[in-house]
């Protein structure tokens, strides 16, 4: 310890004259786990992209292992020993584990692929990571956590000295996070340096040696993680005192407005029954794979149901397509924002009115009405956009999520299903979304909140449905809504499994 592996001096980056990163000086030691936290747009990704060769800095120098380096491109970064585990994995689904690990640096013998050697090395790599994944398995058949392991194995295969992890835990279950942390510790012992970027302050505190706070491109502080608590970190990130993150809960009425009875999809969901009261936030907790998203998709008609009845205000309804769901005033905010929520190639206006377009057009679209309505949402949700005509690909994650919200809200739903609404967005945007949910229930809209963040479930919900492997293991109320009870039900140790 003590030897500096990578050092930056006065790193700055400008885009079209706007300074997004200003004069960053950091020195990270060999074998250190270095956390970087900050809100969306604080400059974390820009810094990481500079270190991994995707961007070149406008000013400043980088020293790696004591020598000044100019990182030309990601391949060059890899060659000198810097690897990045991106949020979206760079794996080829149709290829096997070992083919992915050696992609671009295949081992050959006399011009032919030496598959036996590549498989052997893959096995020993994965053994080092204490992971048993079949090297011949196709990537598409692996779980998210396993894919991440393959990414890490790939980085180690290149003999990386610096590993950059960008939000690695957002897609992992609690258990998988623990495994990842164990792995990070053993990498640390081997002298690998890790830069760890996350929104989850608790995790940063748990795993990192030091943590740097970025705000608006400026380096606010670098401290030993032992010296700052989560509240202090959050304070430094937003630059002011954080008021209470969750708003006060609103009591719902007793009237059940939405009811699901014995909903079954063979092999996925079994006899799901629950009722949603007017103005209620009903939480859905469970581990990844419990079938919560599948349930939501069955409710809005994306997935075919094998049996079961859905009724709204006591009347049975037929929902066979998302179109039927919209007609019945049900909105769904997808967990997969870019995959099924927004169109990145469409501008702000066209995204906002995509579902509710019939309300804007008889024969021709009334673009003035569209623009005015979109402006209202920009104000309401504090959406930061260059213009209403900016395409969403240029938006930050938090702003994209707000547009996604506006889009789901525009058809004026009475039942709103939120699926992981705050995944991958910063504390401030989270608070805005919680406040917005509160506003909705105050107006009498009934909400379902699917979330893997227990804090969120506990902080927001009036009642909590816990699921495990396609079944409901319990519906918790009042004081029973706590971390322990939820986890006991989610793992099947309590309740009808």
């Amino acid at each position, binding site marked *: 310890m003590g030897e500096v592996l990578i050092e930056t001096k006065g790193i700055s980056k400008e885009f079209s004259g706007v300074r997004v990163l200003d004069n960053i000086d950091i020195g990270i030691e060999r074998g250190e786990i270095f956390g970087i936290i900050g809100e969306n747009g604080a400059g974390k990704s820009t810094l990481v992209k500079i270190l991994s060769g995707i961007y070149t800095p406008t000013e400043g120098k980088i020293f790696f292992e004591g020598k000044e380096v100019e990182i030309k491109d990601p391949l060059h970064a890899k060659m000198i020993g810097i690897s990045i585990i991106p949020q979206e994995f760079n794996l080829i689904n149709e290829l096997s584990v070992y083919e992915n690990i050696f992609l671009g640096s295949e081992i050959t013998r006399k011009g032919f692929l030496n598959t036996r050697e590549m498989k052997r090395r893959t096995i020993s790599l994965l053994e080092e990571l204490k992971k048993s994944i079949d090297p011949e398995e196709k990537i598409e058949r692996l779980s998210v956590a396993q894919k991440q392991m393959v990414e890490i194995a790939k980085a180690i295969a290149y003999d990386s000295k610096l590993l950059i992890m960008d939000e690695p835990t957002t897609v992992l279950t609690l258990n998988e996070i623990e495994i990842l942390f164990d792995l990070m510790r053993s990498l640390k012992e081997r002298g690998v340096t890790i830069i760890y970027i996350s929104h989850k302050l608790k995790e940063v505190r748990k795993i990192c040696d030091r943590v740097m706070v970025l705000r608006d491109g400026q380096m606010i502080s670098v401290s030993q993680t032992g010296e700052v608590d989560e509240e202090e970190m959050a304070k430094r990130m937003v630059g002011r005192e954080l008021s209470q993150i969750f708003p006060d809960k609103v009591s719902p009425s007793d009237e059940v407005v939405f009811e699901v009875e014995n909903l079954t999809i063979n092999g996925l969901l079994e006899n799901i029954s629950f009722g949603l009261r007017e103005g209620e936030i009903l939480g859905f907790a469970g581990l990844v794979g419990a079938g919560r998203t599948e349930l939501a998709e069955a409710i809005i008609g994306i997935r075919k149901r094998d049996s079961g009845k859905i009724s709204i205000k006591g009347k049975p309804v037929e929902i066979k397509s998302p*179109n039927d769901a919209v007609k019945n005033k049900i909105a769904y905010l997808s967990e997969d924002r870019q995959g*099924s929520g927004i169109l990145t190639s469409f501008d702000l206006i066209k995204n906002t009115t995509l579902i509710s377009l019939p309300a804007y057009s008889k024969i021709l679209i009334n673009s003035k009405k569209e623009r005015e309505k979109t402006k209202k949402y920009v104000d309401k949700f504090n959406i930061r956009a260059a213009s209403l005509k900016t395409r969403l690909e240029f938006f930050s994650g938090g702003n994209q999520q707000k547009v996604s919200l506006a889009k789901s809200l525009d058809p004026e739903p009475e039942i709103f299903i939120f699926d992981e609404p705050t995944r991958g967005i910063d504390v401030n945007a989270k608070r805005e979304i919680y406040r917005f949910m509160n506003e909705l229930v105050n107006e009498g809209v009934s909400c379902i909140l699917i979330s893997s963040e227990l804090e969120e479930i506990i902080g927001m919900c009036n009642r909590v449905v816990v699921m495990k492997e396609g079944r409901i293991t319990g519906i918790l109320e009042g004081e029973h809504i706590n971390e322990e009870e939820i986890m006991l039900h989610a793992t099947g140790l309590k309740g009808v499994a």
Partner: protein
Amino acid sequence: MAGENVKRRFEYERFGPLIALAILFVVSAIASPYFLQTQNLLNILRQVSYTGIIALGMTFVIISGGIDLSVGSMVALVGGVVILALNWLLTVFGEGGEAWAILFALIIGLLFGAGLGALNGLMVTIGKIAPFIATLGTMAIFRSMALYIGSAGVFRSESNLFPDLGMGNVLGIPNPVVVFISLAVIFAIILNKTRYGRYLCAVGSNPKVAKYSAIKVNLTRFISYVAVGITVGFSAVFLSARLNSMSSTNGGLNYELDAIAAVIIGGTPMTGGAGSIFGTVIGAITLGIINNMLNMLGVSPYLQGTVKGVVIIGAVLIQRKRSQ
């Protein structure tokens, strides 16, 4: 932040094909004194209108993320059926009803085109066959049907009035050009100002998002194939009217290539999700001017395909550079 750059690039994207056409126009005017003569310019427009009309429908299909290779064969089959129908209608309506017979033949052509397009649409949506494969199949089928019905010869119309439809003009502008421009305006309005146009782009951009947004993805795609079928109907009717016949072997041959080329040169990406009717019109005219110039300069007709190919590849290269 990056907003300004984006805006500038967007404008360039929009006007790129137009600027290319303007340059080509000036070069042509300098290279040949005959180029700017009204008759020549009208000729160019008339020549491009047959594939240009089809390119309008093709723009919709490509925006939706598909492709239609069958349009050339469809021209021969629809044209043949129109002429057979016309000859029969002439006997039904008798001496005085020739205009009626032609009107009904036109309607039959449009409906038949729409029907063949619907067939493609069904295979792509309900049948879930990749558009390239499905329309490659119907390309062979439609041509073979035309050849069989026409005994590999030429369908000849017995009407004396029919050629007037193909040769006539409105205020000096040839009929097919009038149809081309009118349809272009209608297609542009549908694409830019109606719900269907918006849905078309959404489906082509990301069908999963479209589905979650309560858009009927299959219906949207299906309609785009019907639309291209209707444009083929127009093209086939005006082409057969001009010649008062339709060849089952050569009718519409390679039209799919020119139609797709016009769409691509006009800046609509092959990946779908966005596109421009205005661009397609520019693309079609660009192709026409290139042909015209090569003819005037006495370049071997065998080399014209090479030039066309280079222009298409060049247009795509420029587009890719821009989107990076």
